């Protein structure tokens, strides 16, 4: 088994864990963490395929995409966090609840 194969399989598992977390967890912060884990799975696919296509060095294009992606993911997570805190400030809710 090659190194990249181990990590592509891991990336699929991480992606599914992230999706499950988005549905199953209640708290805003946990939902944000779940999206970040999902993103981690996607990035892992990219980087492991970059390793598969390595010649003298690993494929630099997916690396650049992933670096860009991480920064964008963090910026959007910061925005999500701001929204979550604002909702908590205004309503005192820390999760989406419909039973009132």
């Amino acid at each position: 088994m090659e190194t990249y194969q181990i990590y592509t399989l891991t990336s699929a598992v991480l992606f599914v864990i992230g999706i499950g977390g988005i549905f199953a967890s209640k708290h805003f912060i946990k939902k944000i963490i779940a999206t970040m884990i999902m993103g981690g799975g996607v990035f892992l696919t990219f980087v492991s395929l970059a390793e598969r296509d390595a010649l003298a060095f690993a494929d630099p294009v997916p690396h650049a995409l992933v670096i860009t992606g991480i920064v964008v993911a963090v910026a959007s997570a910061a925005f999500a966090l701001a929204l979550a805190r604002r909702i908590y400030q205004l309503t005192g809710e820390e999760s989406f609840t419909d039973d009132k």
Partner: protein
Amino acid sequence: MSVLIDIILAILAVYLALQSLLAPRLTQSVFLFFAFGLALALAWIRLGAVDVAITEAAIAAGFLGVLFLDALRDFSPRGSEKKENLEAVQNALPKNNTKSLLLPGMALMLGLGLFLLIALEAVWKIPDGGGLTAAAEALLPESGVEHPVTAVLLNFRAYDTWLEIGVILLGLLAVFAVGGIKIYRKPVMATQDPLLRQVILFFTPVLFLFGAFLLYIGKTGPGGAFQAAVLWGAIGILLHLGGRPVFSMIPRWLGQLLLTIGLGFFLILGFLFIAGGATLFEYPPAHAGVLILIVETMAAISIAAALTAIFANLNQMNEGPNEIESTN
């Protein structure tokens, strides 16, 4: 042997991801997410992506972890009180919802299981197209830098990087829009804690130098604008925590200039290239190295300023109502 390390690392990453979602307390979740980010960074080193590893450890684990911890401070104390109330209400209600929750739970598990199988098959069978390694390798001498990832980020795909700086700025504006702009009104009050003072005195120059080193070394090896920007952003966060919020100490126009200089300089440079007869972001090969270094420096300053501002704004977000409550 190396396969064994990879398998252990993969299991560790999956375990930490699961645990961070299943942990009963929010604090545990956040710390396990920290650990997950670092495990992922190790996996990236194993895959030969050192640039990605530095970015992951610095931004995704470090900076985002700081934001989460800062959020926890507001969510946890009042939250626990609330939860007790909620439990009391739930205990008072007749418990007829266990049965209705069972069915969606089963369906979710089944769906996730199926999806996992599909995803595993999909990543297993991704066709081998050969990638863009050969193309990047052939054009590397013309890019002005020796490190392929930097060449892609700032030369071949400079357009993406330029837009990305814009996305960070957009994120900052969105955070401002949600939280309200209170950032410039905070009174400046230096910390009284001698330890924190010494830490700031010691780490500010070290972080600055290390950031500059990473910025410069990006030309030949792993490193570059984003990694440097996080270290410089850490200076801003440290100063903010030490009671010296950078954005309320410097004049407002200077803050705005710092935030936009990366995006603006990149764009002006692109227009100059167009005026010179080339396409957008097509560096003249003779000066590409110097131009890339200047662009990277500007981008790093802007990103560092944006990260500091995001932290500062989120940090002050929940202080507003507390102050109002205390004055009332």
